[in-house]
């Protein structure tokens, strides 16, 4: 398997960094080589930010940021007009967006004609499961649907291990529920 490179677009405070790390940690747990790192700028809640995950069967030596992601994940739909989210996304690229719109609508909006576009209303799922608008974990679920490098069970294990102490059982379960729902509800077009 070649290296998979994922670019997460979010706004400060939406958990893009956490999601990028959980994906990496789940992959590390099954013996893959990983990197997960945010793009550090002026750190402000609400400001556009990026985080990256690299996963590979071979050791990863590259230490620059990701220029040509295989998958781009938009945690905040308001970034679509603000940031060039399809930059560097190749012909086989996958664009996953947290939105109530259809993949066809997103294709029109972004002018992205290649690869795949997936949409899921991750904010709604987060509100219904977690009761707060924190769409990062559902978007992680959306990724798992389009890339099988790690399984939903492996990610759930990491989420459990990470959240149980910090958030308690109920909220941990709600996070995993959010991942599973987005996995099931992702529309691809």
């Amino acid at each position, binding site marked *: 398997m070649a290296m998979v490179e994922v670019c997460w677009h979010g706004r400060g405070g939406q958990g893009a960094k956490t999601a990028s*790390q959980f994906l990496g940690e789940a992959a*590390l747990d*099954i013996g893959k*080589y*990983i990197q*997960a*790192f945010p793009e550090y700028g002026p750190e402000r809640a609400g400001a556009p930010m990026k985080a990256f995950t690299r996963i590979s069967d071979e050791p*990863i030596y590259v*230490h*620059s940021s990701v220029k040509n992601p295989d998958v781009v994940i938009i945690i905040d739909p308001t970034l679509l007009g603000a940031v060039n989210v399809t930059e560097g996304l190749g012909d086989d690229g996958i664009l996953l967006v947290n939105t109530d719109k259809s993949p066809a609508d997103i294709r029109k909006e972004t002018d992205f004609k290649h690869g795949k576009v997936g949409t899921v209303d991750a904010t709604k799922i987060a509100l219904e499961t977690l009761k707060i608008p924190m769409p990062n974990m559902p978007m992680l679920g959306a990724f798992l649907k389009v890339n099988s490098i790690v399984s939903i069970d492996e990610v759930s294990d990491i989420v459990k291990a990470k959240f149980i102490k910090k958030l308690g059982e109920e909220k941990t379960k709600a996070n995993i529920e959010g991942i599973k729902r987005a996995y099931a509800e992702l529309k691809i077009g």
Partner: protein
Amino acid sequence: MAQTKSKKIPLTGDQAVATAMKQIGPDVVAAYPITPQTEIVMYFSNYVANGQVSTEMIPVESEHSAMSACVGASAAGARTMTATSANGLALMWEIVYIAASLRLPIVMPVVNRALSGPINIHCDHSDTMGARDSGWIQIYCESGQEVYENTILAVRIAEHKDILLPVMICQDGFITSHAVEGVQLFEDKLVKEFVGEYKAAHPLLDVENPVTYGPLDLQDYYFEHKRQQSESMKGALKIMPELFKEFEKTFGTKYDFIDTYKLEDADIALIALSSTAGTARGVVDVLRKEGVKAGLLRPRVFRPFPREKILAALKNVKALAVFDRAESFSAEGGPLYTEIKAALYDSDIKPLVTNYIYGLGGRDIFPDDIKKVYSDLGAALKNKKVSNPINYLGSRE
């Protein structure tokens, strides 16, 4: 808990350092937080607060005080550590020199960050390159794994009775300090055994054998003391290989002063420190597939300067690019470049040599940038001369 099939655990470079410090369990840590070193101090303070280490943690009000407290503690006979970055290192400058001059084996992880101004929090090597003449041993690390291992190794280097010099363990700010990678940790017991118990040769607190640290030393003996420091740095070149071997025997990782990649038969080669060498490794693979004989050399140790090792590794190289993530404003190129050129002068090999200053203030360096340098070297080889001795890679013209 998740079933852990891999023994590696996800850590940032800063967490890796803090973990090594926890396992070493120094007697004293005096530190002041500064981005991007902050997490080291933060995690280590947690270990102290939770009783996981019995270290005396001295939270000071500045880096000048941090290094001053380290000097006091180390002279008293304590195994002493601190950590810093950029302006923090600059603020402790006066005492950095004193620590080395008093031959105090202080170990200091440094997370490389650009010096102000303009103010910038991202990676370059201007901070530690500025301190290259301070008398500290300097080790540069490519990854979180390496910074973890070198922090443990540094304790033995610093405290070796025939070295007794402080050591900086440098890693790239944010690039490795804040990136999560899988890090293979060693057992606490093995680390404890490897570093052993520290017994200072001449502690101030040994009242039976009183000693003086830092007295006035004028025309009469200052010169001889400087000479001893210099001889000790030269001697470190002979002693460190023993410690590399012992480290390999204990933990399995082979260390040397330099790390090379496909250099044996390379016509063109690049020299770079720390994480950039990792990025270059992938470029070498791509070029090798295209039939280009490209290679890579990464000095792990910059002080003392491993001249013989570097020259031996470069013996077949015809054109060479030296990467500097620091500008020394000499109008003669960056610090690594000038040292490499000086080393080549009285050697038998005379490759074409060129300098690329890059990545200042955290400007990202991509595989394509590095590929361009190898292509420049190819052209230099053809023309039998370099077009520009000093280049600024990735800077707007």
